[in-house]
């Protein structure tokens, strides 16, 4: 298993708070992250992604399970083994930059090398290199308070790569930056990874960021892993409603299966143009993307346009189907007027069982922690 650089086995973390009692923030996580991979932890706040990252970094203890880094065990709860963060040899970049305001850029970036007692000339050389790779050439003497957020995050990056770590942990490093900058930093991080070949764990709640940067990603929710897969599989074959809804735009249709036909809830007269899947309950949810629905004038399910909104790149229609309104996005060249008769056909759908609503309530409760 030389290829798996970061291994999590049955990792569990429980917190006890006064208001909620014991909460399982991370429930039985099993992960194998390969060498040189860019792996994202994605999920809404409170899903356990940051806690997992902090356990890998060594800032949190485990309640159960074990973590191995580069073939070495770093946390094993059973044996009470715990390697402190400073001996795990990681690079890490934090959301709030965590650039030391009392040191200039050179001292900030040189700090990890000084701790390692690297010779002075070597430090100078390597800091210069690190600053070059992060486009901070010649700014050694500047203090962080004189810099923009993007530049401060570059210092943090330079500080993380200067020791040439095998594993880089990025804890929402882009979410304090403005959108334009976020995109360019994303490419910079990716370019640095390609150059140095380190393994990246990237924590974010921004799906497009994760999609753009990752080789594989883990979507989690309320302390449970939902799905681990490539971005394309996650988008096209989400394993459940949560993942479907979390990545990209979703539109859901509650349907009833009867006599080999699929009916929209509230309309048992006109069947929908859908084939029943192999495993099917009586009531199910059909999930699709607003831009994957074919709105046309001749084939599919006959209905009419309820409302129309022009967005910048698409036109968005609401179309009644049974007792529900279906959201559809089309290019502007396809135009329907309000109230006009139309047909709806489905190009790509996923089938999910009806899920009870208690999960929503649990999520709301967790937000309070």
């Amino acid at each position, binding site marked *: 298993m030389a290829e798996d650089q970061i291994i999590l086995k049955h990792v569990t973390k429980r917190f006890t708070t006064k208001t909620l009692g014991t909460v399982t923030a991370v429930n039985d996580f099993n992960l194998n992250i390969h060498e040189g991979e860019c792996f994202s932890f994605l999920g809404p706040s409170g899903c356990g992604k940051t806690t997992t990252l902090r356990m890998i970094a060594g*800032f949190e203890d485990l309640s159960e399970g074990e973590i191995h880094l580069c073939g070495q065990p770093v946390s094993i709860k059973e044996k009470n083994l715990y390697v402190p963060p*400073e001996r795990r040899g990681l690079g890490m970049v*934090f*959301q*709030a930059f965590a650039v030391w305001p009392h040191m200039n850029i050179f001292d900030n970036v040189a*700090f990890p090398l000084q*701790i390692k007692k690297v010779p002075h000339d070597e430090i100078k050389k390597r800091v210069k290199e690190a600053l070059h790779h992060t486009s901070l050439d010649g700014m050694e003497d500047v203090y962080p308070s004189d810099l923009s957020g993007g530049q401060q995050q570059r210092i943090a990056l330079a*500080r993380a790569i200067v020791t040439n770590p095998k594993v880089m942990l990025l804890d929402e490093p882009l979410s304090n930056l403005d959108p334009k900058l976020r995109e360019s930093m994303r490419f910079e991080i990716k370019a640095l990874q390609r150059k140095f070949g380190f393994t990246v764990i990237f924590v974010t709640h921004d799906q497009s960021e994760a999609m753009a940067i990752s080789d594989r990603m883990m979507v989690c929710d309320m302390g449970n892993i939902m799905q681990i897969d490539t971005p394309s599989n996650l988008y096209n074959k989400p394993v459940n409603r949560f993942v479907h809804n979390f990545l990209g735009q979703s539109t859901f249709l509650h349907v009833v299966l009867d006599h080999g036909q699929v009916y929209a809830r509230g309309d048992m007269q006109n069947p929908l143009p859908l084939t029943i899947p192999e495993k099917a309950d009586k009531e199910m949810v059909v999930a699709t993307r607003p831009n994957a629905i074919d709105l046309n004038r001749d084939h599919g399910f006959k209905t009419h346009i309820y409302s129309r909104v022009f967005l910048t790149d698409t036109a968005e229609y609401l179309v009644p189907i049974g007792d529900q309104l279906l959201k559809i996005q089309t290019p502007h060249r396809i135009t329907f007027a309000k109230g006009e008769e139309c047909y709806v056909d489905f190009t790509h759908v996923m089938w999910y069982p009806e899920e009870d609503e208690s999960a929503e309530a649990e999520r709301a409760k967790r937000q309070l922690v």
Partner: protein
Amino acid sequence: MNIGKSRKTSDLAALDGATFGLDKAMTLVSFVLLFVIVFIPIFMIVYNAFFFEGRFDIEMFQNVVFSKDNVDAMTNTVIIGVAVTFFGTVVGLFYAWLLGRSDIPCKGLMRALFMIPYMFPPFFGAMAWDMLLSGRGGYVNTWLMNAFNLETAPLNINSLWGIIFVEVSYYFPFVFMQVVSALERMDPTLEESARIAGATQGTVIRKITIPLVTPAISAGALLILISSLAHFGVPAILGFSKQIYTLPTVIYACIDRAGGSFEGIRQGAALSILLVFVVAMALILQKIVLSSGSFDIIKGKSMRPTLIKLRGAKYPLLFLSVITLIVIVLVPLIMIFLEGLVKAYGLPLIPENFTMENFRNLATSKATMDSIRNSLFLSISAGVICMFLGVMVAYVVIKIKPKGKEILEMLSVLPYSIPGTVLAIGVILAWSGALWGISLYNTIWIILVAYMARYLSFSMKSASASLQQVHPSLEEAARACGASHTESLKDVTLPLIRPAMVAGFFLIFLPSMRELTTSILLYGPYTRTLGVQIFALRDSGQIPQASALAAIAILIIIVCNFIVTQITKDRKGV
């Protein structure tokens, strides 16, 4: 601190052609009042130290400055100031770190207890320690001498070290509070990123944590230094018997000896210049240190900082903290109460010697009851007047922003850094008939004027912090709804800053109740304050009565503090 968006609330009346609006009136009144209350006394000191009967005369200044006694006093002042600052900073820093970053138990409770010394005047502590450790007949000393058959007292509180010890125990909360709050506001990832970079916990404290809280440490340390340099009570109580003088006590002795003669007051003024010089040095130091860097260490993401596990050292350190608390908080307070109960000074503290006689005497003594009445009158009037004045000056500085607002700002905070002793001399020089024949000397008004000058900055700071939060659009919205400028002030702005005004009142009321430094130089036969009366009782040897009165003062302070916390607890943010 200028918020980018805050604009000058333009006086719309002026646009309308009116020449004298409410804003102009407030600006004018603020300038005049601050000029009279603050500027004149300070000016009078400088003038009288160097001019005599209208002529430039440096002789007095030279005599005073080069007299050996005064040089000694100055040396003592500096030694005490520096030592108190050093030890106070070390103690404050240690406990701040322990309570802010380690996993020591009972944090909340201990934190509250460590703030207690801040509530009481240090001279109460000096009185208590004098009873316990005085070279001749302190309770502990007597006990130690009997127990170990010693010839001389092993500990002597009536010494430089004794003064330093008592001042440290009352002034370390300055550093403690500053550093605890800095540690709390600090982004924990600043420390975590150093751990990731390979630094051990010890290195992180040394290279990251301490440097980052250095601004807080130096702010607290300089507060200690300035307070200690200007401090009167402790050296007066512990030092007089052994002829250990500091600048504030030597000034007091000088005025006291002269019995109100102008010569004595002039001497005091010259000495004041010396004290001002010492404090000014400290202030310049403060400017340099503070401008050298305050860091933006506010956290981005709310997260519990990782607490450092003390493991084996946990209970020894807890024990040390408890001992510290007992010594600096509990022992002096209990001692004051016990001594207040004892029949005569020096009797052993056993139940047979206890009596309520001292308290009964106080209740029947006219001078004592007068002093309580005077202090209440002074504290409430100073509190109320300064509360409104503070709001007005803050409003002028922050919202109206006239030309010269920097002068207003400076004048209102200046007395805060001027030693109380010096301010008192300035007030005497200004208001005992030298100017326009106004003589307030020996009346209660002269004390009130001094309190106002001394404490105006407290309410002004509280009000400006609150006013800065009131966005100009709130007042503008009221104007747009048809309210006049006065109405919008009365119905919108004032209600919004009311909590800050109440806080401002207590910020002045509490220190006024226990004031000693200024009052001791200004009181007349019928205008003794609580602090002065305690000091005088003790000075005349009636130590049990003095303790009983101090015990009453402690109770008053505790009750008032309780009221303040109740009020500020459910205070609504603007």
